[in-house]
């Protein structure tokens, strides 16, 4: 098993433990991006967990802040802080809030939680790197439902206009948002055409296929000329059969038998 596959399994186990123990929401949103995070933290991001603010690090921003548990898990499993701290998630007095927070959590660049903020911040970081000749890359992970927020489209206009070729926006396109499908809520299709019309470099991949993720994510800013958007076709709740493609698990967490079944599936790799 590759490093990133091992990491994705650890992230999934961690987020189920965290959300079940913390009685918190968004486990399915976390499972949807576990492979993306595993490839980023396992194989793509230039980073040094012992120096979280390393100047040459690639920046990663989780704009869909409600999947904070998955980022905390990726960071802990990558050595930014001890994994035993993960179970503080959602607990009274903890720094590990439901929505991702930079406060006292090494490795988190910025806090999000209200949708439609991360990409603009990523644009600012990318603009600074571009203007000062820095070579790091800026990755920003958005949800599909998040694209309802108009501020994202301001940011896509900005990124294309200023040719932020160091910016990689990743869309977790699992087609389910808070209370229904994306098409029922505010139809996004044809999504790829929208991004192309914004003059962005768009690729579409299976967001659970690690080889495809590695290829799409690991771009060199020396050859890239436009901001990249990676549409990752994903399955909400991926890895736990009864959570997959079921909107119920946007808010629910696994307890009792459900928890046992979820852990069993993850441990046996079914």
């Amino acid at each position, binding site marked *: 098993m590759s490093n990133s596959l091992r990491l994705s399994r650890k992230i999934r186990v961690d987020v189920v433990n965290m959300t079940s123990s913390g009685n918190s929401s968004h486990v399915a949103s976390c499972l949807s991006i576990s492979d993306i995070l595993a490839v980023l933290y396992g194989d793509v991001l230039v980073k040094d967990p012992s120096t979280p603010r390393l100047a040459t690090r690639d920046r990663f921003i989780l704009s869909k802040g409600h999947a904070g548990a998955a980022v905390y898990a990726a960071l802990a499993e990558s050595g930014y802080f001890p994994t035993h701290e993960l179970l503080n998630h959602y607990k009274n007095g903890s720094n590990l809030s439901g929505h991702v927070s930079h406060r006292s959590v090494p490795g988190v660049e910025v806090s999000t939680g209200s949708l439609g903020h991360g990409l603009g911040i990523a644009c600012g970081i990318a*603009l600074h790197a571009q203007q000062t000749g820095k070579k790091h890359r800026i990755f920003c992970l958005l949800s599909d439902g998040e694209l309802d927020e108009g501020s994202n489209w301001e940011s896509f*206009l900005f990124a294309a206009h200023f040719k932020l070729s160091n910016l990689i926006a990743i869309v977790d396109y699992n087609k389910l948002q808070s209370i229904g499908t994306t098409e029922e809520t505010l139809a996004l299709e044809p999504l790829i055409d929208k991004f192309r019309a914004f003059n962005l470099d768009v690729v579409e991949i299976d967001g659970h296929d690690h080889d495809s993720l590695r290829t799409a994510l690991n771009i060199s800013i020396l050859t890239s000329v436009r901001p990249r958007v990676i549409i990752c076709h994903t399955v909400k709740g991926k890895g736990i059969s009864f959570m997959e493609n079921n909107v119920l698990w946007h808010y629910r967490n696994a307890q009792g038998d459900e928890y046992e079944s979820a852990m069993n599936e993850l441990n046996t790799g079914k």
Partner: protein
Amino acid sequence: MRSALINNIQTELASNPTSYLLTGDLGFGIFDDFSQKYPKQFFNCGVAEQNMTSVACGLAHEGSTVFTYSIGNFSTLRCLEQIRNDVCYHNSNVTVITVGAGFSYGQLGVSHFATEDIAIMSALPNISIFSPCDTFEVESLFPQFLSLNSPKYFRIDKSSCLGLPLYPLKIGVPRLCHQSSSRIALLATGGIVEEAMLAADLLKSDGLDPTVYSVHTIKPIDAEFIQTLPSSFDFIFTLEEHNSFGGLGSILAHALITQSSKPIGFKSFCIPDTYPSVVGDQRYLRQYYGLDAPSLASSIRHFLPL
């Protein structure tokens, strides 16, 4: 005041290569040569204030000093959550600059009245708020504000008060503009300090002329200054081109109640909690709401009968 501020920002851009000025597609005639002079530091972000503010947070995240520029409500209320979550929560070194404070754009209609901004911005933790009344305050305090590595809000008025005394100013400490022997004070903020000074003049013959202060820093206000007010004055008036909720009057009253143990008379002159149905220039709208010097003088006489 706007030119003085722009000059100060230019100086900062010239001396600090990682400082940035972002505009929300405003500043025709004043930023014309900025893209040539500062191609790596000046960016027109378009009519997209939410993104502009998040971009500012991203630039500041990398250690930069950042200014955002637009008209009153556009770079404050339109993008309020970006200011709250991105700028203030991250304690970013971002200065939000607005022109057109109060009724500066009085003929343009309610969309352009910046009359609730102090209330809303002052409720955000970490932010400092600057509301100067003349060029001298801009010139004197800009470098001090710049040294704060935290969020700032500059509210620039079209009107400006002329002929005020010049002496070294300090962030947070209101500027003494007119000293009276009466035990009455009038504290105003922004260009409307000119009406306060004129009102003081009109009240001189009655012996009711107040000591006038310009409250150039709305947040924070120096605690020592607040604590000394009740021993120096029996009655305090405030004056502002801002809604009655959450403006200078509210902030000062709250400060007095929480920081001083001595009772003091208090009356605030401000805009009632309503949107006007008329438009007009700044002078007209001040008169409309009784915030011009003759109306103020008459109101003060009414409250303090001889």
